[in-house]
Structures are given as C-alpha cells and as structure tokens.
C-alpha cells in the first residue's frame, strides 16, 4: 500500500474531518461517498485546504431502480495530480441539490444542464432556463423513464422502412418465409 501513500493521506484527512465513506480506487483516484448536505463543505474543504482547485467534471446518473439520482463531483489537484470523486445520492422525486457555482463558476453550466436534462433543481442558480433544448414539453429527457424512440416515432416523420429499428435478420426471415438458421438466432436482439 506504500505506493498509494499520497492517495491514502488525502482520504484519511477527509475521513477525519467529515463523516463519509470512501476508498482509494487506483493510482490517482480517490472515491468518497457522502450525504448530499455535506457535499458543498467537502468541496470547499478540498478546494481551500487540500489544493484541489480544478473542477474537472460533474456527472449525474439516474438509478431508477433505487429511485435515486447519483451526482458525482470530480475535482483535481494540479500539484499532486490526484483526482477525488465525491459521490452523493438524492431522491428522484422533486430532486434538489445544493448550488455550488459560488465555489466554481463553471459549475453553473453543469447545473443548467442537469436542471434541463434530469429536472434537478438548484436553488439560487441564476441562468437562463433553456440551455440545450428548446421549447421542451415532455419529462426531462435524460431520465431513464423517458423513451427516446417512442418520442421520435410520435413526433418526427419517418421514411418507410425505417419505422422502427427492425432487426435485419427478422425482416429477411419474414420476407423469405424461412426459419432463421441457428447460428443467426444467437446474434438476434435480446
């Protein structure tokens, strides 16, 4: 474990200050899980005390089975070249997350996107409502329960032959009236 000394030091420091669980995933990668309430103070601590001054990325994953959104804040330290991934989960119904664009300005862009694509509210976010979409009237499209193909079929004219994603083998089978050979069956969808 001596190879991951730097990583463990940061993790231990975080664990001593905050109530969180975490692990060193590999060289230069530290992943921590925390309650959504403490995320902004963890990020502030990382930025001001630990030198993680670069916000690399914020990602959002929809775990519909657990009825939760997972937000991942990825910060990077230009001196030690370490990356910390701060995970947090919020409820899927009326999701609200703390706004961190006072810590990093560019977080504003991510939050605008998540507000539009996942419907997560960030109180205090000052930005135009629309970012990528225009006049969107359905549920936020990046949510797992939004069916993109059904929406496309309903709204956009399709050229004949392209009404759905037909499996070519099945179409050929129907046209020729033949049974699908065994070797082709195993490549069939589903």
């Amino acid at each position: 474990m001596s190879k991951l000394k730097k990583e463990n030091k940061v993790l231990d420091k975080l664990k001593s200050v905050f109530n969180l669980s975490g692990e060193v995933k590999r060289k230069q990668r530290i992943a921590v899980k925390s309650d959504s309430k403490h995320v902004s103070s963890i990020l502030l601590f990382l930025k001001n005390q630990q030198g993680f001054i670069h916000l690399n990325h914020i990602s959002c994953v929809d775990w519909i089975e657990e009825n939760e959104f997972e937000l991942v804040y990825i910060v990077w330290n230009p001196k030690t070249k370490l990356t910390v991934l701060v995970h947090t989960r919020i409820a899927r119904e009326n999701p609200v997350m703390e706004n961190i664009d006072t810590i990093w300005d560019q977080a504003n862009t991510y939050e605008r996107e998540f507000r539009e694509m996942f419907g997560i509210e960030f109180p205090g976010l000052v930005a135009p409502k629309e970012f990528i979409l225009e006049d969107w009237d359905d549920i936020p499209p990046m949510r797992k329960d939004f069916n993109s193909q059904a929406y496309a079929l309903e709204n956009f004219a399709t050229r004949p032959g392209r009404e759905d994603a037909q499996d070519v083998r099945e179409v050929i089978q129907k046209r020729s009236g033949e049974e699908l050979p065994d070797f082709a069956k195993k490549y069939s969808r589903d």
Partner: protein
Amino acid sequence: MSEIKSIGIPTPEEIKQAQIDFAPRCTSAGRVNDKETQGMVEHILNFARKHSLFVVAYGTGCGAIEIPATMTSRYDAERFGIRGAATPRQADVMLITGYLSTKTLKRVIRVYEQMQDPKYVIAFGSCAINGGMYFDSYNTINALDRYLPVDVYISGCMPRPESVIKGFVKLQELIKNGNAGNGEAYRSDLDWYRKNQQKVIKNWDFPDNYNW
C-alpha cells in the same frame, strides 16, 4: 431561334443575334412576356447558374467537416464554380450537412426562406435521408424532405469530398435541364410543409406569410 439545341458557350455573334431577337418581345422593364421566349431565357440563365453556385456558410451538422477539405487545394471545388457566401441573401445553394436537431431546423427554415430564387438544397449523409444512426433520437428529425424541399441527397456517413463534388455535379445537371430549384414548389405546397414544420417546432413565432 425557336429552340436552343445544345448548351455550349454562346459566341458573341449569337448573343448579339439573341439580343436583337428578344428585343421586341421584352417590355421596357426587361421582362419577357411570351412563354417561348421565357423558356429560352431560362435556358441561358440556367447555363449561367450552374457554373456559379454560391453556398451559404452554415455548417448545420457534422458533415461540415468535409466542406473545408472540398473547398481547399486538393479537391478544389471552386473549379466547378462552387464557393462560399456569407449570407443567405447572396447564396444559391444550401447544404444540410447531416442531421438536423429541432432547434437548428427552425433556423434552417428561416435561412432557407430568406434565400432568393432560384435556390437549391443539397442534403448530406444518411442521417438527413432517414435518420441514420440517430433514428431514435428525440432531438433530430428523420426525413428532411418533409420539412424542406431537397434537390440532391448525398449518401454516406460521412460523404467523402469526391461524393460531395459528385452531388454538386448532379445538381448542375439538374439545373441545366431545368429540373432543380424547389423554391416555387415550396411556395405552392407551403401549407403541407408548414403543417410538418409546426409539428416539430413547438413555439412557432414565424411570420404567417412567406413573403420575404
């Protein structure tokens, strides 16, 4: 001078003769009255048009990456009279370079309607033809000719500069035969196009009449 058989470059004598022939048939404002002469004039104009195609500078999708290659030294599309124009008012050809998201479609319609007749549309790539790999995307249209009249489709993803030039040559052929240019068809079928367009574009804030 009843009909022009071959479209070659007219000699100075022919031009002079044509001017004399057409003079009594034109009004003082330079308009041609009778059908027959109109056809001839169109013929000559088409010859000129096909050698001077100004393409509006609007990279609507990822196909735009092959446009610089087509326009620059190796493929040099300018030898066919193809070159860029900054504004839609001065352009003849509009390239739909690939898929169109609904947000872009609104702007493309606006740009297309601002272009002056005769105007031509070339659509690039499989995604403009039938959606291509974006067939199930909620944000891209799947069949371009329901929303805008298209003269030439170029297949492929992405079309090589050679096929882009081939598409332009095909367009020139259509122009020469008088089969290209759908501005008039668009105007006459405007209701159908508008109905399709409004289905996709939710917030319709265009002028009602297409009269610009």
